[in-house]
């Protein structure tokens, strides 16, 4: 049985019909055709699905779509402004932080909230900030470089 739902995603309003059990991740990918948030484990363990809900990083696989009504949802697709990449996106490219890239969207969204609240983070804080985002390719080394670069290039 489908329930009608209004979601605001990346500044756009969407009226859709979803199952009560549908997760926000599922709805973003399947109903709204957004490929940025990714399914890595569907159980809040890997962080590939991380998006911002009212500016706060959450595992979208652990949010019921129905609970997200009335909130501002931001996915990686919503980061660029006026055609320009977010400094985090730019830094990830420049620092070599992207290998297979499957964790990248989640990493950047997590870092986006983190940097909004931490103007001058040290490396240990950056590590803790992304402790909920798993990566198997990079060893996190250049990911931390990228976040640090984005933090201090402001």
């Amino acid at each position, binding site marked *: 049985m489908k329930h009608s739902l209004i979601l605001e995603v990346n500044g756009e309003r969407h009226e859709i019909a979803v199952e009560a059990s549908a997760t926000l991740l599922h709805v973003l990918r399947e109903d709204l055709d957004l490929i*940025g948030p990714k399914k890595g484990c569907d159980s809040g363990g890997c962080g590939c699905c991380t998006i911002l809900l009212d500016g706060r990083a959450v595992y979208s696989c652990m949010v019921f779509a129905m609970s997200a009504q009335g909130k501002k949802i931001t996915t990686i697709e919503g980061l660029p402004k006026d055609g320009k990449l977010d400094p985090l*996106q730019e830094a990830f490219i420049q620092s070599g932080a992207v290998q297979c890239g*499957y964790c990248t969207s989640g990493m950047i969204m997590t870092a986006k909230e983190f940097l909004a609240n931490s103007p001058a983070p040290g490396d240990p804080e950056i590590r803790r900030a992304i402790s909920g985002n798993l990566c198997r390719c990079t060893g996190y080394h250049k990911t931390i470089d990228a976040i640090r670069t984005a933090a201090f290039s402001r």
Partner: protein
Amino acid sequence: MSKLNIVGHSVLRTDAYDKVTGGKGYTVNLRLPGMLHGKLLRSPHPHARVLRVDTSLAAKLPGVKAILTAADVPQIKYHPVYFSPSEAASMVRDMLILATTVRFAGEPVAAVAATRPEIAEEALELIRVDYEPLPAVFDATSAMQPGSPQIYEHAPKNIVMNPSFNFGDLQKGFEEADYVFENTYRTQRVHTCYMEPRVCVVDSDTSGNLTIWSSTQHIFGLREKLAFALGIPISKVRAVKPEYIGGGFGGKLDMGFLEPVAALLSLKTGRPVRIEHSRYEDFITTARNPFEVQMKTGVKKDGTFTARSAKSILDTGAHATHGAVVLMVHGFFGFLLPYRCPNQTWEGMTVYTNNIIGGGFRGYGAPQAAFAVESQIDEICDKLKLDPIEFRLKNAHVQGEPHPFDPNFTLSTYRLADCLEKGAKQIGWSKRLPVGASPGTKKRGIGFACQPLWVSGCMGFPDIYEHSGAILKLNVDGTVNLAIATVDMGCGQNTVLSQIVAEELGVPVTAIRVTHADTDTVPFDAPSHASRVTYSAGNAVKAAAASAKKRVFQVASGMLNTAPENLEIVDSRVQVMGTPANGISLADVVKRAESPYVKMVPDGMERSPIEEKGTIMGIACLAPSSNPSPSAVQFVEVEVDTETGEVKVLRVAYAHDIGKVINPSGAEGQVEGGFQQGLGYALMENLTFDPSSGACLAADFLNYKMPTAVEMPPEITSLWVESDEPTGPFGAKSLAEPCLIVPAPAIANAIYNAVGVRVRDLPITPEKILAALGKLDPA
């Protein structure tokens, strides 16, 4: 060699922009009109006969379009390993797409295709399966005992293979030894943890032609295996290369159940069928095989090996899959070959159990061997008060020697000694304290491990493909299309190959476009595995670029009125060597070749020479001429909390004999990522199972412990020793796998230096350390 403008530089990843803005190229994104969703019904029993499968209720569920059971699949036994042909004598074909005897908990017995994934799941719950559970065995040693459940008729004592190799006179060697060391080492089952799940979409037409998209490391292997298992000609299967995949590490180096099942469901329904693994399914699909390695080593008091023998037992799980090859790589490149010793024996056993099946994983048998070999060397040095660096040098191979595996090759470039020196300096080896001497309750220690010999691909290995091909096409705007079957699984294969082409052709790397490829249109390339892409595929793309360049010069020679041998391409400009003024843009040359033979001009018509006409292509299909060995050493500094057993890695120095670094940033990424995997292997990862039911206890990221950013050391230094390998593209050898082979023994040795505790079975958990320190209360 002339100056390199692109190779050797940290060129930005060609696919990074796409990946930071969403990531379009993953197979997981693919949706086709009319697509159905498939799900696999998996056995809860680790060993059972499937007596009856009643699908009648499931078939009635609205939205269910097809159901498969064992009765619906071709009865063709196959092996799923991509890098070896189906008929290869050294491989064991013991799999069926859906079987009537299940041999591990999770083996599929039925499948459903439905209009929505939830419907397919619901349908699975409506399928009634009557099993006759059979006794199961979960460890290799027990499996070989009399009275153990016989898992296959074709494998008495559950032994798949039992090779042994002798060199010299072992008995004499032990007699000559001053000391003999006997130790057994054990490693655990771990999972590759690629972040993009295994996923495929298969479409079919009414003539039974199949198109398959899969998150795979080898499109040609997928095609061949799928065709073989379905009993159809390979020309009826087209495997499309994914733009890139979300990680593989060897875990996508074989055909799973999902691909042939999706194919059969598509043929049955006439619609595309998509199957995506849940993370649970991925955890029970592929793993690094656990090993037990029993070693007996004789040395002179100065550390020279006089005799080495080992017996290695590999638990291959319910199907042989990679077990035969992992065993041999382990035996040869892990034990017999890395060091010189005139008297050596190795015996290996690949054993069936009712555990999950083993797959490929970076290192492929060598991490298990290195843990044993490099730990034992450390133990020997500690006991005999020998310098561990000197010990390696004393027993190591020497540059210029014939390659110990195949004397047709030589160790033309071999720089283990330089790696040892550089790494030791970086970590501060000379300041290392004696065992346990670090003050305080949190004790520091330094240790290292080597992988003295490795491969750049599979040239020379029986029953393993090793050839590549590439097609280059030059465009009128000066860009270059590179069509190649090589899959980029995150290591940066697309970027490195683009760099090689760009360097050879004399164009910027941004001019190279890695395009669509599928098994119908591009030449064969062996899988993305075995540390082979830079060396092997790199050679092929370089040759293709050279071939294209030749044609460019032919066309340009007419335009510039000079012999082709006088030309060069610099920065997309075709010019007489050394005189940029006397040249034309590459784009203009291509335009000339592609433009009409007759051109209308103000005062009539202009004809260009017919010989200049035709698309400028470069095609090369070849096998590499050698298999040069890199070598690697990793030094680590750890801190061990002697009150809790917890281990922190503080610093890492990794030195690699690489030939030539094509992309330094990318190469560092391989070292850093490899260390995450190695750290996890050493200290925390463990794919565990219930000892009576075989159910997986660690099938999610909460229970399967993988290092997060917090566990990683803040300092990882990559040191490159470049030696210009003559058979490699621009001098390159390989990199990828040693990055994961050496961390575990390096960490184990560092722990020993810190606290005098030797743990011989992985993972080295805090509990094991505390127990070894005698700090656990009696139970």
